[in-house]
């Protein structure tokens, strides 16, 4: 599998001028596109990106622990200061053993994750074995890299379980791809990192880890205006992913900080019905 070059297959392979085109054949170049006519291409790129403004208003996190991978996210979609939805599914089920998280442009994330799911399935059919998490994340990163500078806004984590165990990769619209144990992506990520990093241990049970994930999302939604809605928590184990919980963060607040009824000094009694 190489960079997608299906569009460039011609019926005239190897027009006899041989070696240079031969060798390059394997390292097929990134799909080419017309460059805009401007003297300052970098400035133009920056402008174009700013226009779409990938603010990534959200909080998503994922971490690897003893029992697999825990993935959690909020569910708020905001357009500037307007909350457009409180019930967005930000954890995308690529296939029964791989999850992707959504941060950035909702449409971009949804489309590219679905596209990745198709590629993973085709790989399975062609090779009679599941694609590895590193392979899947690499496919996505390569696709995003080829659209670099064109205004895609995707900050995603690919979490899954393959032959080598649990896997977690961070992939973004710049084409960056990082392997790691703990990631949080989005405007609420600083707050989530605070809670996640201080509470993290590798040897946690599934219950402890899911509680840590849920609490981290909750704290991020408390402080970050662009995050809110429902804190969903998923677990990826050797047999695939399962959804563990989806709690409204408003209710979670009172779960963590219950209101103690103040002891009244004077009690108003109901007037007698007369």
């Amino acid at each position, binding site marked *: *599998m*190489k*960079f997608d070059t299906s569009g460039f297959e011609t*019926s*005239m*392979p*190897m*027009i*006899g001028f041989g070696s240079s085109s*031969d*060798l390059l*054949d*394997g*390292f097929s170049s990134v799909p080419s596109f017309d460059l805009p006519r401007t003297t300052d291409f970098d400035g133009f790129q920056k402008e174009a990106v700013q226009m779409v403004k990938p603010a990534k208003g959200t909080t998503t996190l994922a971490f690897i622990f003893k029992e697999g991978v825990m993935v959690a996210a909020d569910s708020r979609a905001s357009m500037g200061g307007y909350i457009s939805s409180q019930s967005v599914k930000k954890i995308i089920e690529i296939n029964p053993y791989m999850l992707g998280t959504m941060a950035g442009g909702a449409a971009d994330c949804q489309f590219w994750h679905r596209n990745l799911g198709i590629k993973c399935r085709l790989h399975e059919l*062609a*090779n*009679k*074995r599941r*694609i*590895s998490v*590193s*392979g899947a994340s*690499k*496919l996505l990163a*390569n696709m995003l890299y080829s659209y670099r500078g064109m205004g895609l806004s995707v900050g995603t984590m690919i979490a899954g379980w393959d*032959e*080598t165990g649990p896997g977690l990769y961070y992939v973004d619209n710049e084409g960056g791809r990082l392997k790691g144990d703990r990631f949080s992506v989005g405007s609420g990520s600083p707050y989530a990192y605070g809670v996640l990093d201080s509470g993290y241990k590798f040897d946690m049970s599934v219950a402890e880890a899911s509680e840590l994930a849920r609490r981290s999302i909750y704290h991020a939604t408390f402080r970050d205006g662009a995050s809110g809605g429902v804190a969903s928590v998923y677990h990826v184990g050797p047999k695939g992913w399962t959804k563990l919980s989806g709690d409204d963060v408003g209710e979670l607040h009172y779960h963590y900080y219950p209101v103690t009824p103040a002891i009244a000094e004077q009690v108003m009694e109901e007037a007698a019905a007369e």
Partner: protein
Amino acid sequence: MARYDRAITVFSPDGHLFQVEYALEAVRKGNAAVGVRGTDAVVLAVEKKSTPKLQDSRSARKIVSLDNHIALACAGLKADARVLINKARIECQSHRLTLEDPVTVEYITRYIAGLQQKYTQSGGVRPFGLSTLIVGFDPYTRIPSLYQTDPSGTFSAWKANATGRNSNSIREFLEKNYKETSGQETVKLAIRALLEVVESGGKNIEVAVMTREEGGLRQLEEAEIDAIVAEIEAEKAAAEAAKKGPSKET
């Protein structure tokens, strides 16, 4: 500017692709090659036509690595082989780059077979004139495999197979004598099969082994091959003697 879009490989009225069949003829004239799959080792053995005295035999290796865990031997047009091998090597690395995993034997076989097929259905080109034997161990599962491809672009997995000159007789021998082997026994079986059609002697045979533990392709030295050939001859002689012995007494 000349246009290379006229197809050369076209159907005959009775459904044959003659160019492909002629390519198979070229394969049949090539040197004999044998591949055997054991439980923990895979062996390739190729007939070496006598090397001219001044030729540096190391430059004319017939068994090559495609990657650390995959090896290939072929029969047919050696120049075509070079092109195919180079493309396959690039594909092995490309796969490592895009999927962060080494190729499986089946994958690279499928790729090579796909290439061979493409050249039977493209304008201005002729098919590759070679059949390949591809051996290796899959990454992670470490399962050994042996595959064969041919100029038509078909491929299949084998426990043991031969291609090139007199491949039919070698295959017959293998069918009669194949059993699950491991380690040195696999090497012996491959050499015994090749000796059916080749003059015995280390300088007429090139042998390479890949084992599960070691990984990597190991080319056997001439002296080693001579030793194994001697063992095989001794076993043969003993078998002959055993056959003659009892019958004399009756």
